[in-house]
């Protein structure tokens, strides 16, 4: 029983990071219709650059994270320019190939320019494990879970009640209509790129503080899992990012405990395969949950 509860707690922590990074992907896909595969590696590079402050000057986790988010915002803006503005065809294969190329380039650059001792990450304010009975969780994990619940829980309010949120929601729903009512599309897209990259850097910084290190290959694993999550949640909507992310984390933890690393990787891929090959099945799930389809929202019949 103890291992079940502990795995549940670990799964929630793992799922929180997937939900946060998945939201970043979701935001970019919604506003730009491109899957920014380079997001994870850009955020990782930003965190490693921020970590230089800790290694050289001894700054604490808060300062390092803030610096990482600022750097991530800047690289997010640059990547918007490279991946979006410069491409003749801003959707489809060209952008996907460009994103993939940027991902590989950033990962190679990080591997070459940051040596092994640069991967050692700043600790989370020196705080360690917290115990509730026989259950234990790292302070960084608790923060991740709280952050995911807070940000994704406030998201519906932001998107439907705030001016900026309404503009973002309008852009994701119908860019032409949003432009017609005066939403500054280009500036909003730039800002979304910057915010998405900064949010991914925040999540990675917490994960790095928890693990004690931030090696380059971390970006690949997180990117793939977040993509799985985005693919699963796309027809259901942003409201299901948090439960789906937490669910993914739980599946991984339990599969790893009872079946090993191979079962863990297989379970995620099987889940993705089942969902993708039953595209109509997902639409049916959305219908059962009462989530209106795109065509219903636009008032056209399917």
């Amino acid at each position, binding site marked *: 029983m103890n*291992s079940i509860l502990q795995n549940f707690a670990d799964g929630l922590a793992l799922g929180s990071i997937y939900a946060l990074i998945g939201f970043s992907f979701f935001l970019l896909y919604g506003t730009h219709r491109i899957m920014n595969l380079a997001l994870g590696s850009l955020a990782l590079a930003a965190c490693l650059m921020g970590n230089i402050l800790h290694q050289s000057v001894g700054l604490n986790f808060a300062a390092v994270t803030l610096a990482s988010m600022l750097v991530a915002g800047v690289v997010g803006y640059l990547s918007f320019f490279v991946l979006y503005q410069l491409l003749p065809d801003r959707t489809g294969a060209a952008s996907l190939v460009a994103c993939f190329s940027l991902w590989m380039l950033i990962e*190679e650059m990080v591997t070459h320019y940051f040596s092994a*001792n640069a991967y050692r990450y700043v600790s989370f304010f020196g705080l360690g494990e917290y115990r509730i009975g026989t259950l234990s969780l790292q302070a960084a994990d608790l923060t991740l879970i709280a952050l995911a619940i807070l940000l994704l829980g406030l998201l519906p309010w932001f998107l439907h009640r705030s001016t900026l949120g309404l503009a973002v929601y309008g852009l994701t729903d119908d860019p032409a209509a949003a432009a017609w009512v005066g939403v500054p599309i280009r500036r909003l897209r730039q800002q979304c790129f910057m915010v998405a990259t900064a949010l991914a850097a925040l999540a990675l910084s917490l994960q790095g503080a928890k693990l*004690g290190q931030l090696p380059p290959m971390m970006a690949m*694993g997180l990117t793939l899992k977040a993509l799985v999550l985005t693919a699963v949640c796309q027809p259901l909507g942003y409201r299901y990012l948090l439960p789906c992310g937490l669910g993914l984390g739980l599946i991984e933890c339990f599969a790893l405990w009872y079946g090993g*690393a191979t079962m863990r990787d297989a379970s995620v891929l099987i889940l993705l395969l089942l969902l993708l090959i039953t595209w109509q099945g997902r639409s049916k799930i959305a219908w059962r949950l009462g989530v209106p389809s795109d065509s219903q929202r636009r008032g056209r019949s399917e």
Partner: protein
Amino acid sequence: MSKGDAMYLQKFIKFLFILKVCLSLTTHEAAADPKSRVIEIAGLGAKSGPIRSSGINSEAVLLAARDRINAKGIRLADGSRAIFKVTYYDSACNVEKATTSLKKIADTQALAIIGPTCSHEAEAMFGALQKKTADAQDSGIRIPVLVDTAIKPGLARMSEWAFRNVPNEDDMYQQLFVWIKATYPQMKTAAAGFEGDHGHSKGTYLEVIKKHLLKEGYELQSEVQWNMTDTNFTTQVRKTIEKNPDMIIVSAHDTSTCGFLHELAKQNYKPKLLLGLTSSAKTDLLKACGREADGIVIPTSFYPVTPDARLAIETSERYKGSVDLHSAAAWENLEIIKRVIQESTITGKPEDLISDRQKLREGLSKLRSTKGLLGIIKRTQDREAIKPYFFVQAQESEWVVRHNPNRKE
């Protein structure tokens, strides 16, 4: 794309071109003496990927060894002088890249190959070599390959063109557990974790470490595995420490070993003894997680106890690499090739490449012992090596010798 964007893109491409031209004009290799013949040697290793440190270190040490040898030159049978030219290829610990590189190198003027890094690469490469030299029907590639790193047992038997200069892990871990039994008699239980997707880590754990652990009577409480690219070890560590083992064995390379040890520290568990994989006995492990790895004991075939070993360390620093049990073998391999060239009738001329490769192979086969950085290395009939080794322990971010099995007490 707007006109402004297109102009910006053009300027950016021009800038990249000029940068590339400027970079290509700089070179680290000293100009060859026009009177010396140039003998090409190819290096092959993982310079990218999770274990890129192995390839980078091997290349650095190989270049340092080249410089030392070229300072005096190589004496050829016809009285002329030759120098080495080393070109290092990146195989990325990938089977397809390694076999493609093998075929590519075989078509160049390279006399021999030093490498590769990963055992599964070596297996694939040796499969592509000619198996028996007496078999004229075998159209396999005919170029000597001297392995410095790929350490999985028994690979050299696959081809008569394959030679290995790697330590015998079976002997090392057998002696290690005998020593642990004598030194720590109170230890009874162990738990183990290993990289399930890497040939060396998995093979050494399952075929060597586990075998000797159980043979010495220890109880194996749990086994967990992870992938080389994993970064989250929470569940694996929880499972490992569940039953409070005396000893924890980590059969993994430095990056994931550090990840595991970081998590072990975060969960506030300090085992009585930590054991590691031979490939982790390097400075990179201590740089990345010296505090967490404090106390880990690993058998290794390199330690700076001799003047030659210390010279190798000093000269390799110029190429930003470090000497460890794997990269030290790259140095030794180049010295071995030099010795065989000087003792044979290898000409180093481009038109004699095929016969030179044959002569090198025959010369290497006849060797019964070679001079290594730590002392004499014995060579076996099946083209493997028996190297001296130590048990080292990480103490305050430095490797310290805990036991020298080579010394008869």
